[in-house]
């Protein structure tokens, strides 16, 4: 199976230009694809074809129509093709196809590409069907021997060439040009059909592809590019309410995604599902009950360092803020399984001067079944505190939205104040990935920040995803989330060098659940709208603005937090890909160059404190 690379300046260069990792099948965020916005598909432009990304679906359709037209009046037209001398420039594929279609549909003989276009084609691609594809062999659309033409052979035999292809007296060279293409990639949307013969193959192949028959693709890197292009094109189609094109593209995405490996495949799969939901207006994912969501969340906690990073850095900030205080009170906006607090309890127990008396108020959503998750967590934390010798009190609040909480509920009941010694208690407010959900309702986040300020906390720790998934337009949110979740899935993929290392069975299960957790987020960002769209992530800059507006000023997370975060990350297997960075006192954890989660700490600003 010899691959023949006809020319140097081929597709091989284009992926490099796009900065993809070679041959790993990984999705790398592409900052600008030039797709859609500037109009011309970059890859095809490199081949000499000008096709707009937004037109690609149309081009696909037209090729299909061309195929139908040509296969229906087989006998009559082909001899005419062979002798006609009208030349159209096939580099503008769209127009060329239009002209072809007009002339096929009318009985006039149509065009042959010029010899210059043929030379063009030597740089071009034709659709190739790998002979490995059993589906191709089974398909009835193309004659079986056609797949033989696309075998990995240097030169097709003339006998094979003559079957099912237009007989060309004038241009035997085109056949030779075609052959080295064999081993190449699939272009479902493009066609370099410079000769009428391959056109039939091309069109018939396309017909197969649009019938969603999977074809083996040899070069996953190429399909990777195609996949990203298809995703972006689909996003744009949805943005423009062009649901037919979006529909076609979603099917394509599913097909292409099936040939990827690893994180790219997962990302494409989840996005395809979310897009399909949006296009077909399925009801958004039913609100899974809290048990299931907590289950997924805890698996995400186990399999990725993000939540541990968040907890450890927030705990360090709280620990430092509580230095010297004898009574402390922590308000947790999202208690979930309480995984953040054992480490803080242990650190408080070991601090010089002995542990303070510790009160925890945990807020959680109401349970659908009768189990009382919140109380159980409180009970476990109480047991742990007893073991290590801390005076611990717990209170749980059930609230379907944080905005329902009033400050009076959280403050200490009046009568008890005098009983304890040690003076007033120091308060810390902790919010890990809870605030962005409030942005769905106008005014909610301001109310919650107001409630937090009314508690007069010494410190408020905020952890949020570092992404902008709350843009005004769908396309903005779509492209942003595509980049974000690509990086996220990349980082979860367990091998530093791209190949999945052997994992313990349990680790694999955790990762699958973590993937599902992220998949739900993707579905929410892409498919939901209005009040249902709760995953409204915003960037650190935007949160800084909001906190400042609410009367908070930033507290720098110290070097201890930074060092501890680095030590934690050093323990992870794919350690070197993770980056802890410090940005104006806030810490971010990211994958290579992309920050994915940010921790920041706040206290009441001097101006606001006067009020």
């Amino acid at each position, binding site marked *: 199976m010899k691959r023949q690379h006809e020319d140097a300046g081929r597709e091989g260069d284009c992926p490099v230009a796009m900065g993809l990792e070679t041959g790993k099948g990984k999705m790398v965020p592409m900052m600008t694809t030039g797709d859609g916005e500037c109009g011309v598909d970059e890859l095809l432009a490199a081949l000499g074809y000008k096709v707009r990304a937004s037109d690609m679906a149309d081009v696909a359709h037209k090729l299909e129509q061309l195929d139908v037209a040509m296969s229906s009046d087989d006998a009559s037209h082909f001899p005419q093709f062979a002798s006609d001398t009208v030349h159209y420039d096939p580099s503008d594929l769209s127009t060329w196809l239009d002209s072809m279609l007009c002339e096929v549909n009318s009985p006039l003989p149509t065009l042959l590409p010029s010899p210059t276009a043929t030379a063009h084609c030597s740089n071009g691609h034709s659709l190739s069907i790998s002979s490995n594809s059993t589906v191709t062999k089974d398909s009835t659309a193309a004659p079986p021997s056609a797949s033989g033409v696309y075998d990995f052979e240097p030169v097709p035999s003339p006998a094979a060439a003559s079957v099912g292809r237009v007989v060309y007296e004038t241009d035997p060279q085109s056949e030779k040009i075609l052959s080295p293409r064999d081993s190449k990639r699939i272009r479902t949307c493009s066609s370099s059909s410079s000769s009428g013969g391959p056109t039939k193959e091309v069109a018939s192949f396309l017909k197969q592809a649009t019938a969603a028959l999977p074809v083996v693709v040899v070069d996953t890197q190429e399909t990777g590019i195609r996949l990203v292009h298809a995703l972006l094109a689909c996003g744009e189609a949805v943005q423009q309410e062009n649901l037919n094109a979006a529909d076609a593209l979603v099917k394509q995405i599913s097909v292409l995604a099936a040939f990827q490996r690893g994180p790219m495949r997962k990302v494409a799969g989840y996005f395809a599902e979310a897009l399909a939901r949006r296009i077909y207006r399925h009801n958004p994912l039913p609100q899974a009950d809290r048990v299931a969501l907590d289950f997924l969340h*805890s698996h995400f*906690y*186990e*399999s990725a*360092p993000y939540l*541990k990073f968040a907890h*450890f850095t927030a*705990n360090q900030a709280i620990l430092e803020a509580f230095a010297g205080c004898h009574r402390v009170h922590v308000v947790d906006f999202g208690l979930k399984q*309480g*995984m953040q607090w*054992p*480490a803080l*309890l*242990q*650190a408080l*127990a*070991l*601090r*010089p001067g*002995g542990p303070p008396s510790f009160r925890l108020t945990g807020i959680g959503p109401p349970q659908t079944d009768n*189990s009382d998750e919140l*109380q*159980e967590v409180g*009970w*476990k*934390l109480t*047991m*742990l505190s007893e*073991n*290590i*010798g801390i005076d611990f009190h717990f209170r749980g609040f059930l609230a379907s939205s944080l905005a329902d909480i009033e400050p009076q509920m959280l403050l200490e009941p009046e009568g008890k104040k005098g009983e304890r010694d040690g003076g007033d208690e120091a308060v810390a407010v902790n919010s890990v990935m809870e605030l962005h959900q409030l942005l769905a309702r106008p005014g909610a986040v301001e109310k919650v920040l107001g409630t937090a300020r009314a508690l007069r906390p010494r410190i408020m720790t905020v952890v949020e995803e570092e992404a902008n998934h709350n843009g005004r337009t769908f396309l903005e949110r779509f492209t942003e989330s595509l980049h974000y979740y690509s990086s996220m899935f990349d980082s979860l993929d*367990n091998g530093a060098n791209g190949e999945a*290392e*052997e*994992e*313990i069975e*349990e*680790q694999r299960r*955790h990762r699958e659940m973590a993937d599902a957790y992220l998949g739900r987020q993707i579905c929410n960002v892409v498919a939901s709208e209005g009040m249902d769209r709760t995953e409204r992530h915003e960037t650190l800059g935007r949160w800084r603005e909001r906190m400042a507006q609410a009367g908070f000023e930033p507290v720098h997370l110290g070097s201890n937090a930074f*060092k*501890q975060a*680095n*030590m*934690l*990350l*050093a*323990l*992870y*297997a794919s*350690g*070197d890909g993770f980056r802890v960075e410090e940005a104006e006192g806030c810490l971010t954890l990211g994958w290579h160059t992309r920050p994915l989660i940010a921790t920041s700490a706040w206290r009441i600003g001097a101006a606001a404190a006067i009020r």
Partner: protein
Amino acid sequence: MMMLLLPHREEEEEGGAAGRRRFPINDNADLLAEVLGRLDGRSLAVAGCVCRLWSAVGRREAVWEAVCHRHVAVGRAGAAGGTRSVVAALGGYRRLYRLCIGPALDRLAGVRRQGPAVSSSSSAARHVSLSLALSLFSIDCYERLGGVGGRQQQPPASLLFLCKPVDVS
């Protein structure tokens, strides 16, 4: 009693417990503990397989405490007594080493083995601190606490990330 250091010219007897001037190490468990406390974790665990005495001494918390402190960077010098009680409450030094410190050291050693191609920013972090180890340990201990109604608990998994995958090299 460091009588072991006295020069002696008599023939050596094996396991001579009556030892007139021989003081086999097995006679003095505290001395044995001192020696074992200077081993690294793996060697200490192996030493526990020698005989019953060594196994018993090798399980002493004090021995494992020495091992732990030898292998981690202790941030604060003080509160040693407090640390002891907290660690005991969480499960003990031997468990701490087995679950947290040992795997962490292995992981870091593995990373170091992979070559000097590590970035300078993280090279400073290539050691385990006691506070980090204790944090992870406390999370694991918390996970193992049973629920109130005896509900089906998930097996504790917060330390899985430290587990060594099957070596496929």
